[in-house]
Structures are given as C-alpha cells and as structure tokens.
C-alpha cells in the first residue's frame, strides 16, 4: 500500500480548488443558515446562477466574460426575491422545502431539451473562459510547485483566484457579523418576534441575508465553472448543497473559521478515505478471515457510507463542529 501517495493526495485536497469553491459556498450558506437561521437547501441554485451567468454571457450575448458577474448578480437577486417573497414570512421549514424544490427546478430547466439553445441542455456550456485564462500570469503549459503540490499554470491561477475570494469574503462576513447588522440577523435566528417588537423589519433582514449569502454562493459557482472550463447542469444538483452543508457543520456553524476550514477538512477526509480504499483493493478484494469485505468496484459507494458514518459520529460527539462553541450549543432549547 502506497501510504505516501495517500497522504500527498489528502494534503493537496486540503488546499485544492474543490475545497476553495466549497468554502465559498459554505461562507454564503453560513450567512443564511449559520447566522440568520434560514434553512436554505438550495445553495446549488445560487451557484448555478453564477456559473450560467458567466457561461451564457460570452456564449450567447456576445459580450465579455466580465459582464457575467453582473448578470450572475442579477440572476441571484431575481432568484432570491422569487424564493424569499412567498416564504420568508413563514416558518423556517417552509423555506427549506421551497429552496430544495427551487434548486431542482433550476437544474431541470437548464438541462431541459426545450431550452437547449440557451443553456446547452445536459451538455452545458463550454469554452467561455478564454478571457479569464488570458489574464493568468502563469504559463499554461508549465508545471508549478514542488511534488506533491504541482499544478499546471491554469489550475494554479484558478486556485489563487478561488482562495483570494475565500479570504476576501471571510473578511467581509467577519466585519458584517461584528456590526449592528450582524447583531440583528443573529437575533432573528434566536427569536424573530423579539426583534420585531424592537422595531426591526425582520422580513427585510432575512431577504438581505438570503441574497447576500446567495451572492457569495454565486462566486462559488463561478470559480467552479472557471476551473472546469465548462458549466454543466448536473454539477448543481441537491448533493452539492448537502455536501456544502455537511462541510459547514463539520467546521462549525456561525463561525467564519468553521465555514473555511470545514470544507478543507471535508475534502481532505473524502480524498483520504477514497484513496485509502482504492489502495486497499488495488490488487485483490479486501478480506478478513476469508470473508470478502470490499472490492474495487465498491469503493465509491463505501466511501459515501464511511462519510455518512463519520457525520453521525460527529453529530453525536461534537455537535458544535470543530470550531463551534460548546457553550453556545448548550444554550439551545432553554
């Protein structure tokens, strides 16, 4: 078994582009769910807004890719209003139901044959990232870094952009949550009526939180699309939302550090267990006392099982996540 390889891959996953775009999505979700208490199960829809905003501009509108950010913003705001207006007056669970449905509607619309000429159907949109590629200061052909952290020029470029965005948004969220605005949304999470009785327009704050979180999610979708150089509808399915949520809970909700480190650990653990299982079953099925436990073709599903198990253990023994405050957690339900 090649332990060096497993460890190398795990460490690269910590800092990889996947962790970066997950962190962005988690930062957005943290504004909505962690601080404001909005159970948004449709973060992938906001990510799709970003990715498609970017993809469609250069492909169909014939304007530069940078207009994609503006178009993405417009899409996010429209989507936020569309989802928020009917549901934010209701109890939290309704928002959860509506957002999960919304994300699916968005995905099914963009992958539909009917709108293939706009969204590219299930093939999605490709080749829109040239202007972003051209901005890269690195030589696309060369390899940068030392083993095991070796990246092509383009990967390095997207990674840097991704992590810079993570740092910028972490800082902004930190500032925001320290401000009176943050105080109001945290109070809304605790008790809406109390906040309303003190003269705050709760509905408007929830809408702001939903859209601000959506905007950060939009950048996540953009980073992901730029890294892959394509936009594909099935990259924005339910699973993405739930993995991001998982990563956030792993790190600790309502903590800026949690929303960044959580995704890093999520990908680290994911890659570790995946690599480990692959190494384990590389030559022959893994057996204990002659009983077959796992073989090569089962690695994928078993990996998910292990992650699920890990999550259950986490929720049982450390419900506040890695960075969450135990003291705060203990105040629940009093």
């Amino acid at each position, binding site marked *: 078994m090649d332990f060096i390889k497993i460890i190398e891959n795990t460490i690269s996953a910590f800092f990889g582009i996947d962790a970066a775009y997950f962190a962005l999505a988690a930062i957005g979700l943290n504004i909505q769910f962690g601080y404001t208490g909005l159970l948004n199960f449709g973060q992938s829809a906001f990510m799709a807004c970003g990715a498609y905003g970017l993809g469609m501009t250069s492909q169909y509108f014939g304007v530069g890719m940078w207009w994609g950010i503006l178009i993405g913003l417009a899409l996010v705001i429209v989507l936020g209003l569309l989802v928020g207006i009917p549901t934010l007056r209701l109890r939290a669970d309704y928002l959860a139901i509506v957002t999960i449905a919304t994300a699916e509607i968005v995905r099914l619309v963009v992958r539909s044959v009917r709108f293939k000429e706009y969204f590219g159907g299930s093939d999605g949109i490709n080749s829109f990232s040239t202007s972003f590629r051209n901005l890269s200061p690195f030589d696309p052909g060369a390899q940068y870094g030392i083993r095991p952290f070796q990246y092509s020029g383009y990967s390095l470029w997207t990674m840097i952009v991704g992590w810079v965005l993570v740092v910028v948004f972490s800082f902004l969220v930190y500032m925001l949550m320290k*401000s009176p605005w943050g105080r109001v949304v945290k*109070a809304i999470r605790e008790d809406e009526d109390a906040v309303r009785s003190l003269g705050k327009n709760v509905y408007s704050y929830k809408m702001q939180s939903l859209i601000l979180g959506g905007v950060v999610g939009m950048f996540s979708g953009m980073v992901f699309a730029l890294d892959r150089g394509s936009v594909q509808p099935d990259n924005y399915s339910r699973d993405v939302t739930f993995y991001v949520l998982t990563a956030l809970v792993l790190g600790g909700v309502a903590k800026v550090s949690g929303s960044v480190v959580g995704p890093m650990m999520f990908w680290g653990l994911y890659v570790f267990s995946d690599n480990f299982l692959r190494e384990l079953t590389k030559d022959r099925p893994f057996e204990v006392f002659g009983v077959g436990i796992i073989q090569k073709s089962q690695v994928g599903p078993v990996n998910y099982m292990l992650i699920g198990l890990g999550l259950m253990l986490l929720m049982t023994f450390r419900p506040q996540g890695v960075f969450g405050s135990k003291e705060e957690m203990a105040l629940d339900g009093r």
Partner: protein
Amino acid sequence: MDAERTYTELAQRARAALASVDASPGVAKPDPILLAEKVRRNFGGVTAVDVQHLEVQRGSITALIGPNGAGKTTLFNLLTGFDTPDTGEWMFDSKNLKKVVAHKTASLGMVRTFQLTKSLTKLSVIENMKLGATHQIGEKWWNGLLPFRYRKQEAIIERRADELLKRFKLDHMRDQYAGTLSGGQRKLLEMARALMTNPRLVMLDEPMAGVNPALKQSLNEHIRGLRDDGMTVLFVEHDMDMVHDISDWVVVMAEGRIIAEGTPDQISANPAVIEAYLGTHQGKSLLEEENA
C-alpha cells in the same frame, strides 16, 4: 402602603386625573395615550377579543387583569400589530395604527414585552441591549462593512445600554450569554432592552410570571420607575397584590370583553370582578362549601 409612597409631579397629575374618572367599563380619560375602539378578533367561532372602547391615561400605570383566556395577550398582540383584528380602530398618541406593521410601532414609541421571555440566548447581555436601540446606522448592511460609519453611534448606544444595565442591576452579567440568566433576570433584561427603544408607552405582558418574591419587589420598583420617568405603562398581570400595589388604574377583562375599570381599590370591591375571577362561591372556605 400608599401613604408612605412619594409620587413625582407627573404621576400625581395622572393619578389626580384618574381619580375624577367614572369607574365604568370603556370610560373616557382626560388625556389618553392609547385608544381602542370596537376592536374585535375571532379565532374560528370563538371571539377572543371584543373591546368596545378602551383608553389608557398618559403617565399612568394601567393594569390589565382577567382570568386565563380572557383575551389579554391577544389584545396586546392586536394593539402592537402582531395580530390583526377583524374589525376596529386603535390609536397611539392620536396616530391611527390600523395600517401600521408590528416593527413600526417601536419607532413610534410603543414597545412591548412577551409573556414567555424572549431573551436572545446566544447573544450576550450587552448585545441584547444594544439591539434595542432604534435608527442604527450600522444596521444597514453596507454600513456594517464600514465600521467607521457606525462606531460613534455604537459608543453612544453602548453607554446608554450600560447605564440601563446598572439601573436594572444586570451590569455584572454584561458579557455573559443571555441564556445563562435566571428567569427573573431575563424578565429584567427584556424590560431594559425594551427601554432602549426610548418608548413613551411600555406594554408588559406578565412581567412577574415565574419571578421569585424577592425579585418581584425590585421589578415593582422598576415599573414604578418607568412612570416616574414619564412613560406610560400598560401591563398584564395575575398577581393581585402587585396590581394593587403599583397600578393607578385597573382594567378587567373576561371572555374578551372589558367588564370593569377603576382604581385598584374600586376594583377589589367590585363584585363583577370577584365573580369573574373566583366564581360565585368566593369568600367561603372549602369546608363551608362542602357543608352548604
């Protein structure tokens, strides 16, 4: 008890004004700060509130009492915009509140607390307090990103919050999570937080529920202090001793209607009130009732 108590000029004026008011349900007051007219709320087939006319004298402490299910809290919800009546009009300081949403009433100068205390458990005590201040610059998200825009105002708010905490004897808990406070301290915090909005009318929904006797005394003093500072207090309460002790005027509700009004002394002698509260057999011991 009344004899040894001193009243500020404002309180004296309110008490004098009320002394000359007829003790009948729905009576007009010389200077009402709150006025409700034909406010009615049905839940399904049940009429929870059906108030023909109610006025609350400015500068007074008015108690709203009545047996469980009399509609006191519902009336509170209606007056503060947390619920909408089927019919009726109500005014605060001669401003019609019919179309005013709940969160706007606080900036008009009318603030309420809740029967089940709503202390925001995961915020510290001081954060709870600062939340109460209205018109904060930093509550706009774009200003929230620019600390220099709200820092000055925040300092003023914090100073005011600290003063109020001291007055309510919560200053030693300043940086604790509100969730660590006792039930009574939470009541105090909620009241203090409400004062951060600079209200003219404070509506307290059962401020004494679940509070130990020692703390009740100090809560009493605090409520009286509100009136002495020029605020009008309307509160719901079950504890008759306390009602008698601190209120200038008492309004009695039963089955959604106002059945009696008057000074505390007039109310405790009112047979309709005693009947509504205790049933017709009041005043007899259980033994007597058994024998009867």
